């Protein structure tokens, strides 16, 4: 059974480490906040200028001046601070945020990410995504394994305009987890959703990657060798 969105978020949340400052993208990545392990000290950053995001407000606690980057109402914590947009992106661009979890339209085997425009369609703009992938230490993508037409989203090369070149470190889809040790290396398939086998992932993936599933006979090279 493929992972649900919540299970994908929970899997991404396992990458959080004590003391991390983390930026969560809009949509499924926001769900990661619900799965932070108890006892783990993680501070969430929102690029509109809030560091230390609390949960959504109760009725009656809503404050129009306290929102996250998704423009959702939010609350403060005892550690919260507010900064200007320039300072907020100073944190991001300056490498002070350890991890960001983002959605994607496509990821390429060399780590290229496309998640901001489809030629011929109304372009809404990159928002803060280009800054995040350029400056945050580690980038995890949460996305469905295939698009609505069934086409693979993890590809040899992105067909859509890039958000960043060679910026993705880990991919969590509804079927599998891919990661790579560093940005000079190719991706490895390291986990499968329950009931999903490596052959199914292979059939639904265009990108080349190395199969590193525990218990499998030997690492195999699928499709083509990732270029570095």
């Amino acid at each position, binding site marked *: 059974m493929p992972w649900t969105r919540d299970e994908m978020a929970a899997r991404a949340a396992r990458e959080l480490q004590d003391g991390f400052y983390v930026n969560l993208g809009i949509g499924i990545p926001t769900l990661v906040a619900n799965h932070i392990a108890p006892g783990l000290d993680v501070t969430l950053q929102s690029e509109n200028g809030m560091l230390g995001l609390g949960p959504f407000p109760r009725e009656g606690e809503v404050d129009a*001046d306290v929102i996250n980057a998704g423009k959702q109402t939010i609350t403060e914590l005892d550690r919260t601070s507010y900064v200007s947009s320039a300072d907020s992106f100073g944190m991001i661009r300056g490498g002070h945020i350890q991890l960001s979890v983002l959605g994607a339209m496509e990821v390429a085997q060399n780590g290229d990410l496309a998640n901001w425009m489809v030629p011929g369609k109304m372009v809404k703009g990159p928002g803060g995504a280009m800054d995040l992938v350029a*400056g945050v230490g580690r980038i995890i993508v949460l996305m469905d394994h295939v698009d609505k037409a069934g086409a693979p989203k993890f590809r040899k090369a992105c067909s859509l305009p890039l958000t960043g070149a060679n910026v993705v470190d880990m991919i969590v889809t509804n079927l599998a987890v891919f990661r790579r040790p560093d940005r000079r290396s190719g991706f490895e398939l390291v986990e499968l959703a329950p009931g999903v086998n490596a052959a199914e992932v292979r059939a639904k993936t265009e990108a080349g990657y190395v199969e590193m599933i525990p218990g499998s006979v030997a690492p195999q090279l699928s499709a083509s060798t990732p270029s570095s």
Partner: protein
Amino acid sequence: MVQKVYPDAAAALDGLLRDGMTVAAGGFGLCGIPETLIDALVASGVGGMTAVSNNAGVDDFGLGKLLRTRQIRKMVSSYVGENKEFERQYLSGELEIEFSPQGTLAERMRAGGAGIPGFYTRTGVGTLIAEGKETRDFDGETYVLERGIVADLAIVKAWKGDPYGNLVFRKSARNFNPMAATCGRVTVAEVEHLVGPGELEPDQIHTPGVFVQRLILATANEKRIEQRTIRQEAA
């Protein structure tokens, strides 16, 4: 004492407006936007504006009001997704858009206000955003040259202000307002609370009065919420 406080928005904008001017506005989404001054720009009829603002408001609120009346010719923004009228004008070619990544846009305004005409950033390298722009390598990494922005007029929203133009913003309504305030040749601020001289704690002032030439008490403080999200409590 120089009189920075004006009786209303129309008076504060008097003599500052001309067709084709560049206007920088504070705000993120509908949070921290100068509602009163936007209404006054609508009423003034000034046209052909280039608006520098992270977002474009929604159809009937924020900068969306100036789009509906076609007073804006060009937007410099990072994300314009919440506005149907924007989409219509853009697709029909009536409206020009220059996308700037959000952090780059904030830094362009900060730089413009700080006398820095350009800066190098990693953001956008290898993407359409960097096309046609100069790049340079530093320590083995490629960076793209982005230009600072200086606007003819900046309009900002603050929580508190004093007669010297010192401003304090509130919570996440700060966002782009401090940078917008610095990048205007003339900056007009609207404040929710106009306090007396000495009432603001000097150590707590976010934007000092040197950046603010004119000031009004905000009369439009709807503070519309785009995504009212409430915690689901377990019963």
